[in-house]
């Protein structure tokens, strides 16, 4: 038997083969319907019998039918974009078959709901983008300053007398800036009394911007109101050199991309001198040292693998300036302020995919900042005056402020099912601050404050369905200078209400340690607490290619704000405490339309803010002097192809802000409001023109951009507040340094055709 069977065996498959050939002529009809989880028909799904040509595509009713010559057990595959693959075993035995298949939705970043409450994002890739990076440099009023453009978004105040973002009733100190994940100290140039300073960094080094006006992620902390999260650019497209000449600056730069396009390095140098501008544009203060800045930066970027990139950005700045103004307590004396700033900043970050599901983000940064400030009381001949009586005796002083920050942060992310993910990590920050103060009464009065600040955080993105997502996080912090820890929850929810619209909610507790000055000035305090804010945010947004609509309402509660105590009007603070409190509520609207007017892109934002707080020396809760009730902006951009020119305009309006003269009342034994009022409303119309003569000439060896801009075209009166004299009898308005400001510049780049940026912003 054995012998006989053996040669027969290989013939068996042959017989099967032959049989199947014979059977080939018999066809079986297969039909059915394809639906989604909600019972809606799916059009365009592909139905296939695995490893055969047989199959069909579903029609608009989700129905399909086809004939097959296959027999026996087979696998039926159903695929459709946006749905998970459906696989099922079927038996074809000659009789007609019918299948109704329900496809499961594939979690998809493009269609899934995203958590947006509280934040505005400017990036190239994200669907939720409200502004693109180009928008930041083409906003007329922004003067190519990152925060200038953000001030046209709802939530931010128009504060002209000091730098920073004042968000939803918060002070500028309540907004923190992060570059590639780590906190940046001294993001703005050092403060000058009553003159807002710009951000230090060029907007061109950032590819992504998230401006969170509240309810931000547990990955960030120590900002009561707002987080500005910036992401630096990756490798350039090609090597290039650039030169710029303008009414305020000269600059040159070079970027080199390696042949394999996996690494690059670059250097830039920028020299700013306002002498020409100030000669042409009359300045209100007397600039006895014309502002002069030297900035240099260096960067390198290396692709560490297909998915990883290592980036370094190093920055150096040295600048000097001096402004002289009449002294408010005298008719003949002057007050001269001079400042020298030295700043060094370095940021190293590494992003890498570890295996299939893990991502690693590593960031380290270091900065050192020195401000040398001198203030002098001078006579009509600009000579020092030494006065022994109050309030003149303390007006001349010198202070050297040193601030260093070293920080390291690690975030690990693990992808879970679908789009869900968990993130966790930690950060360590070492702050060292030193003040060296000298005046008539003290020589080199040195105070130091060091803080070892540690934080650990975890956060989960949970996609319950494609349409419903939650972000749940927690953060633990410890500050050595305060010897206190805190743990805070952060929760956001988002629900997709339509194909283009969604609603979100966010809640979170935010702590911030008191500003370093409170530790550096020798004030008395016992047991300082973290200042605290609790945010509640509700948001609705509808985003399509041509329109963006956002409506957001918020309520923010402040606790443990810093109160300052003293017993006279000299401004000397004896002690501080944590008894301050306040709240802010409001509604904000944002509308952007790229379609209705041909070649015109515009946005409108409006903020309503109702806020009161009792902090510093306020006698009770009042509307702070940096908060306007109504703020609105209109930004318009139009490219005229024939003229190769882009025209940008922006108009901002804000109702008047309150101002107060808060004086110590000896009989009451406390601070009281001696005088108060409201400034005139703020109006500013700005205009800029970008002319690109080489546009459309792909053979041009160099590419030029001419920029002309005017701020406050109409010359509207702008008053930011009032300063009061020591005796309270005189008040002087705080005004911009000039009524208007003009800028003209020409920027040339060689090797890379920048016209692409401009062309395509208008396609």
């Amino acid at each position: 038997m054995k012998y006989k069977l053996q040669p027969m065996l290989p013939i068996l498959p042959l017989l099967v083969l032959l049989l199947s050939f014979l059977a080939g002529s018999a066809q079986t009809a297969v039909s059915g319907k394809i639906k989604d989880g909600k019972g809606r028909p799916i059009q365009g799904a592909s139905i296939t019998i695995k490893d055969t040509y047989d199959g069909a595509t579903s029609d608009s009713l989700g129905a399909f039918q086809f004939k097959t010559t296959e027999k026996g057990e087979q696998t039926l595959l159903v695929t459709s974009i946006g749905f998970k693959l459906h696989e099922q075993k079927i038996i074809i035995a000659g009789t007609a078959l019918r299948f109704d298949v329900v496809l499961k939705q594939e979690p998809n970043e493009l269609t899934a709901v995203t958590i947006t409450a509280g934040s505005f994002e400017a990036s190239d890739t994200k669907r939720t983008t409200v502004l693109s990076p180009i928008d930041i440099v083409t906003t007329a009023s922004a003067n190519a300053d990152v925060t200038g453009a953000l001030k046209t978004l709802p939530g931010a105040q128009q504060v002209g007398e000091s730098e920073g973002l004042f968000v939803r009733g918060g002070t500028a100190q309540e907004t923190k800036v992060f570059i590639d994940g780590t906190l940046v100290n001294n993001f703005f140039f050092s403060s000058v009394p009553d003159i807002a300073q710009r951000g230090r960094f060029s907007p061109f080094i950032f590819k992504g911007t998230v401006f969170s006006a509240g309810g931000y992620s547990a990955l960030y902390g120590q900002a009561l109101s707002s987080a500005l999260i910036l992401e630096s650019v990756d490798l350039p497209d090609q090597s290039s050199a650039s030169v710029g000449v303008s009414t305020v600056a000269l600059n040159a730069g070079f970027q080199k991309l390696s042949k394999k396009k996996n690494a690059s390095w670059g250097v830039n140098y920028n020299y700013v001198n306002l002498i020409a501008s100030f000669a042409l544009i009359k300045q209100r203060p007397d600039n006895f040292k014309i502002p002069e800045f030297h900035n240099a930066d260096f960067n390198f970027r290396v692709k560490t693998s297909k998915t990883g990139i290592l980036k370094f950005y190093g920055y150096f700045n040295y600048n000097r300036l001096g402004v002289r103004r009449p002294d408010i307590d005298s008719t003949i004396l002057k007050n001269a302020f001079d400042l020298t700033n030295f700043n060094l900043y370095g940021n190293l970050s590494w992003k890498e995919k570890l295996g299939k599901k893990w991502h690693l983000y590593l960031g380290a940064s270091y900065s050192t900042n020195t401000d040398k400030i001198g203030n002098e009381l001078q006579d009509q001949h600009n000579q020092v005056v030494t006065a022994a009586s109050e309030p003149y005796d303390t007006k001349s002083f010198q202070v050297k402020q040193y601030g260093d920050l070293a920080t390291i942060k690690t975030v690990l992310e693990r992808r879970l099912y679908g789009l869900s993910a968990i993130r966790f990590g930690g950060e360590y920050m070492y702050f060292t601050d030193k003040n060296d103060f000298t005046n008539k009464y003290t020589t080199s009065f040195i105070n130091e404050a060091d803080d070892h600040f540690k934080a650990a955080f975890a956060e989960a993105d949970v996609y319950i369905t494609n349409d419903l997502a939650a972000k749940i996080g927690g953060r633990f912090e410890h500050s050595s200078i305060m010897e206190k820890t805190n743990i805070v929850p952060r929760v956001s929810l988002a629900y997709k209400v339509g194909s283009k619209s969604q609603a979100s909610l966010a809640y979170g507790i935010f702590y911030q340690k008191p500003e370093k000055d409170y530790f550096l000035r020798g004030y008395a305090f016992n047991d300082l607490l973290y200042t605290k804010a609790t945010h509640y945010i509700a948001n609705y947004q509808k985003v399509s290619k041509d329109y963006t609509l956002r409506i957001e309402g918020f309520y923010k509660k402040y606790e443990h704000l810093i109160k300052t105590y003293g017993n006279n009007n000299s401004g000397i603070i004896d002690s501080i405490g944590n008894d301050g409190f306040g709240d802010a509520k409001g509604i904000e609207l944002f509308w952007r339309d790229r379609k209705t007017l041909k070649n015109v892109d515009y946005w409108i934002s409006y903020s309503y803010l109702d806020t009161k707080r009792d902090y510093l020396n306020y006698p009770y809760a009042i509307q702070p002097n940096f908060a306007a009730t109504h703020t609105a902006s209109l930004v318009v951009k139009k490219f005229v192809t024939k003229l190769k020119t882009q025209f940008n305009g922006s108009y901002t309006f804000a109702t008047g802000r309150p101002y107060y003269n808060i004086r110590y009342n000896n009989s009451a034994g406390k601070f009281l409001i001696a005088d108060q009022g409201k400034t005139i409303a703020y109006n500013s119309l700005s205009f800029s023109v970008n002319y690109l003569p080489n546009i459309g000439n792909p053979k041009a060896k160099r590419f030029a951009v001419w920029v002309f801009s005017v701020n406050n075209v109409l010359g509207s009166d702008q008053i930011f507040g009032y300063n009061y004299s020591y005796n309270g009898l005189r008040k002087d308005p705080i005004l911009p340094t000039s009524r208007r400001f003009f800028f003209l510049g020409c920027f040339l780049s060689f090797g890379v055709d920048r016209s692409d940026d401009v062309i395509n912003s208008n396609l």
Partner: protein
Amino acid sequence: MKKMFIAVLSVAIAAQGFGQSEKFTKAMTAAIAKWDSAKTADDMQSISATFERIADAEKTQWLPYYYASLSQVIYGFMKNDMANNDAFASKAEALLTKADGLQPDNSEISCVKSMIATMRMLVNPQARWQQYGATIQTELENAKKQDPANPRPYYLQGQNLRNTPEQFGGGCNSAKPLLEEAVKKFEAFKPASAIAPSWGKAEAEKVLATCK
């Protein structure tokens, strides 16, 4: 007996093989005919699925993957639904990657790569130009190098320029020489087989006609 068995077996295998390749060519010819006559986006999507079925069943043929990807791209353009362009592009890209794996450095495949980049760019030209504009250019240059006789990269480049405003270096003046070159190359072009890519002549002539 043993010899006979081998003889039968080899005939059967040969018949199977022959039958298979004939079946493939027949299915491809039918699908390409349907593809040529497709009128609506939905037709195009359904044909893409047909090519994908053939490709997945064959596994070693690049052409059905190529056509599946190409018709997915054309479906995307016909559908003109920017919000979903990325999803269509990803699908087309997945199919093309398989074709590319089976037939590396192919001029026709490079052409489709540039079309996919165009589709992605159109989602948000302002923000995406830098990234995808470069890809479109590189892939078309690759296509020209890989097969200098292939008219399609010239046609695609000409069409891209035709659709770019004059002020930006586009328009008829710059598109015309490329389109004329494409038409000339189409006249001389001989597809490698009955099912090899041969599309684009009529389209190139149509675009060129708008410049006269």
